């Protein structure tokens, strides 16, 4: 039995998403997928591969390019009793559907006094990978100030599976953010059905000198930077936030209380960013604190490889900034 409990399978990130959807669609006839090229094509990153063959065109619906209507229709179907998964190919395009998401979905339970809720899972892909100024953005921080939404950004195949399962059990709308550079990656995923609870961060590298909070693809950059800094004698504790709304403030604050320093890392913008919110919330608990935030340059993300690299944090830049920040804070 103990062998079965520990049994894992090696899955690509995209396969973990497809597995979670396959299991949920098999168990619950109200779950269905709609989006551009999600059918026989299997999704831009094959993250819906096999679903069309297994469940057919009624439950794996290709849509026209009409993000506003797609999100509104999915919310209406959810409010009327189904459990829709709507795929917005790139996160940049959620802007086209923010009206139904923010003005309808996020407020539905409140405004109806609980008569209706919209259990929508909006899956979208963020991140820079050579596709230019309108196909590269990480705008998750925009959504963190919307009461009624939940926001997850898994970094590993196991969390992609587990958070997808858990998100499909939520009563209201959840935005599920993956990342272009995570799709080619593989990792161990438990064979037995399981879930990663929303609202729980995870320490992915223990350390003693500084806490680095990050999420999604930037977890890998943070781990690489932490390895570089270990050589210089600086011990970094790296936290994968996993859920951005609600934040796991307990875990983050406990870590910062131990290490005494906080560095936040994100691929998006610093101004009003994820790190700004993490820092503010941690300081509300722990009081004044040395904080350093790392993110993209305040510029669009070009498809030009030189300019894209210049814009987005990499391990060398993160290591240098963490080293500078901790030295400044007196270590």
């Amino acid at each position: 039995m103990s062998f079965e409990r520990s049994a894992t399978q090696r899955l690509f990130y995209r396969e973990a998403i497809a597995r979670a959807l396959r299991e949920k669609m098999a168990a619950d006839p109200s779950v269905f997928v709609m989006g551009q090229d999600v059918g026989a094509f299997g999704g831009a990153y094959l993250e819906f591969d096999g679903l069309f063959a297994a469940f057919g065109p009624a439950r794996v619906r290709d849509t026209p390019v009409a993000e506003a209507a797609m999100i509104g229709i999915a919310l209406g179907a959810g409010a009327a009793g189904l459990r829709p998964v709507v795929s917005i190919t790139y996160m940049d395009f959620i802007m086209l559907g923010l009206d139904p998401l923010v003005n309808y979905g996020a407020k539905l339970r409140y405004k109806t006094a609980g008569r209706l809720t919209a259990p929508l899972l909006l899956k979208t892909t963020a991140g820079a990978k050579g596709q230019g100024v309108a196909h590269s953005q990480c705008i998750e921080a925009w959504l963190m100030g919307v009461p009624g939404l939940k926001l997850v950004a898994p970094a590993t195949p196991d969390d992609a599976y587990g958070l997808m399962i858990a998100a499909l059990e939520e009563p209201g709308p959840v935005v599920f953010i993956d990342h272009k550079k995570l799709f080619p990656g593989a990792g161990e995923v438990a064979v037995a059905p399981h879930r990663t609870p929303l609202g729980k961060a995870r320490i992915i590298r223990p350390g003693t000198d500084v806490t680095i909070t990050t999420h999604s693809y930037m977890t890998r950059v943070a781990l690489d930077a932490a390895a570089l800094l270990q050589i210089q004698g600086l011990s970094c504790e790296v936290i994968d936030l996993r859920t951005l709304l609600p934040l796991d403030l307990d875990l983050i604050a406990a870590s910062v209380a131990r290490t005494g320093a906080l560095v936040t890392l994100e691929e998006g913008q610093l101004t009003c960013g994820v790190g700004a919110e993490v820092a503010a919330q941690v300081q509300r608990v722990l009081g004044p604190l040395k904080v350093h935030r790392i993110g993209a340059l305040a510029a669009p993300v070009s498809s030009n490889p030189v300019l894209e690299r210049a814009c987005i944090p990499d391990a060398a830049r993160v290591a240098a900034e963490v080293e500078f920040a901790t030295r400044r804070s007196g270590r």
Partner: protein
Amino acid sequence: MTRIAILRRMKLIRAFEAALAARRDHGFQLLSTGEEAVAVGLCAALGTDDQLLTGGRSIGFALARGLDPGCVMAELLGKVAGPNRGRAGRGHLSWPEAGFFGAHAVVGGNISVAAGVALARLMTGAPGIAAVVFGDGACGAGSLHETLNIAALWRLPLLFVCNNNQISVSTPRGAALAAASIADLARAHGIPAQTVDGMDAEAVAAAASHAAEAVRQGEGPAFIECVSHRFAPHSTAARETRTAAQLQDIRSRCPIDALARALLASAEVGKSALERMDDDVADQVRRAMGFAEASPYPDAAEALADVV
């Protein structure tokens, strides 16, 4: 619905809105005075399994759908006896158990949501259709055009109802829409469409019943355009931009007066019966107002209720 029942329901809407607007604390309301025939005519074509979604000009439709006037008044005045505990108001009033899936005050914002409600019926085989009401002001918005396309493509059980009152706040329909006929917007997608006199409740009821029946039979979406007139300014806080002469002309086409005249002319109803009807309606509105006034405002702690 009988012609007498239609008349009575229209009178209820008129008297209800007048009583609401007369209060100093009525808040910010979008009245449907003048447009009662669209609301009552449409709702005459809907059954208990159907769901109605509207824009922010929702009061007439909510009452036409049969929602309890006392509960609706409580909602509009922010009282906890409202179906949404006074949180939603006119802009977001909903009572899905009563077939009123709800208002949504973003212009055009409920159109795609209604298509989702229709999709849920299509996918589960649940009975009933979805109907969505929007104004001419929503017809330039992308949400209508995107949803018309998908509804036609997926043959959704959805009845589109444009309440074309011919003016969007201050902008005349002709200054906002290039299409010569709003109904043509639907026809471009292969959706059957009809334009009716929105000041004639029976004409609206006939067109809505015909269209709803086709939708019920699985023929996909249908579209009706009801050409109406709004008697009051856009909102209780908005300036009137039309001239006194224009308003006099518009108000001479009152749908309530027209139906009452027809009923008198055909001797279906007498003068004294009409007066009794007015008294009954006034009494119903008084009771609704009393019910709403007796209900408390929510506790301030409810600001955090039902958020996630």
